[in-house]
């Protein structure tokens, strides 16, 4: 299994391809580095640790800085692991670029969705609202949350108000429209989680049923 890459969300735009207008999200992945290679022998499992996001040295703790200094990599904000069966082709300090992917490929994109705080049932679960007039006092209330004495409790999983967003979300099987290795850009069809500048994790799509 090929490993993935980290990037930041730049934003959405519209481009034209084969005469059609395509909504794309631009993801910038420049400067990704392999920061550590974990193998079965040394760590009990094999994975590649990837770093992204250049920062000042003082933004890191000394242990973090030392960890990167060991493999001669400039300070990076984010470190994430990608599990891989064979890691022999990777060495710590190696550059990773968007050419890992090619146009037409399907990818899964993971990020933290935009936080909307404690939200009501209308915004969070698309409940309908109550009448606004004619003496109605039920505008945005959730309504009944279940039957009475039997069962005498609210069923687990009942949709209710609560925290919305700011949660790890993976959008699966997005089409890679274009790969710009020169600028380290990835153009992916459709929307991805998170606000602009948010950290994204891009991996080749997991296809259910495929070996």
């Amino acid at each position, binding site marked *: 299994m090929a490993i993935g890459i980290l990037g*930041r969300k730049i934003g959405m735009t*519209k481009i*034209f391809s084969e005469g059609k207008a395509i909504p794309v999200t631009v993801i910038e992945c420049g400067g990704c580095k392999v920061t550590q290679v974990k193998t079965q022998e040394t760590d009990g499992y094999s994975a590649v640790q990837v770093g992204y996001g250049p920062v000042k040295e003082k933004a890191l703790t000394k242990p973090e800085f030392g960890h990167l200094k060991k493999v001669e990599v400039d300070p990076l904000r984010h470190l994430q692991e990608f599990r891989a069966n064979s890691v022999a082709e990777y060495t710590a300090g190696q550059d990773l670029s968007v050419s890992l992917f090619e146009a037409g490929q399907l990818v899964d994109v993971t990020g933290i969705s935009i936080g909307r705080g404690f939200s009501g049932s209308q915004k969070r679960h698309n409940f309908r609202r109550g009448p606004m007039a004619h003496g109605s006092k039920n505008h945005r209330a959730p309504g009944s949350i279940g039957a009475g004495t039997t069962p005498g409790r609210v069923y687990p999983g009942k949709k209710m108000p609560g925290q919305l967003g700011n949660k790890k979300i993976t959008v699966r099987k997005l089409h890679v429209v274009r790969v710009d290795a020169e600028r380290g850009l990835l153009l992916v069809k459709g929307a991805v989680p998170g606000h602009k500048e948010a950290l994204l994790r891009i991996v080749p799509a997991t296809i259910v049923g495929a070996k």
Partner: protein
Amino acid sequence: MSAATKEGANTAPVKKSGDVILREIEAEYLRTDLPSFRVGDTVRISVRIQEGGKERLQAYEGTIIGERGSSTNRTITVRKIFQGIGVERVFMLHAPSIDSLTVTRRGMVRRAKLYYLRDRVGKRTRVKERIMTSGRS
């Protein structure tokens, strides 16, 4: 601020702003062959149409009654009267399906959106012509 810091600058490399990157990408898809036009102008647009594996050009001529969006998202609404029925078509200006756009008549209008033309019939749908004088476009 003196830049002389010990053993390598303790500064992060300058990140290019996301908006700048977006504008750069969009710029690659913008067409530069569009003439300048205004709302109220009469334009003739030829559109590439795929028909049974073959491509042909279809012309459409009418008055621009509105313009919206910017960059690759820019569109114009063109209205014409076809067989006594008002037809409005929205064109994505930068789409490759638009072969050419020519201004056939300049219109003089005082609105950004000419939706009032929808309620008019016959002679009243005409837009006053803008006479080109030097110094004004």
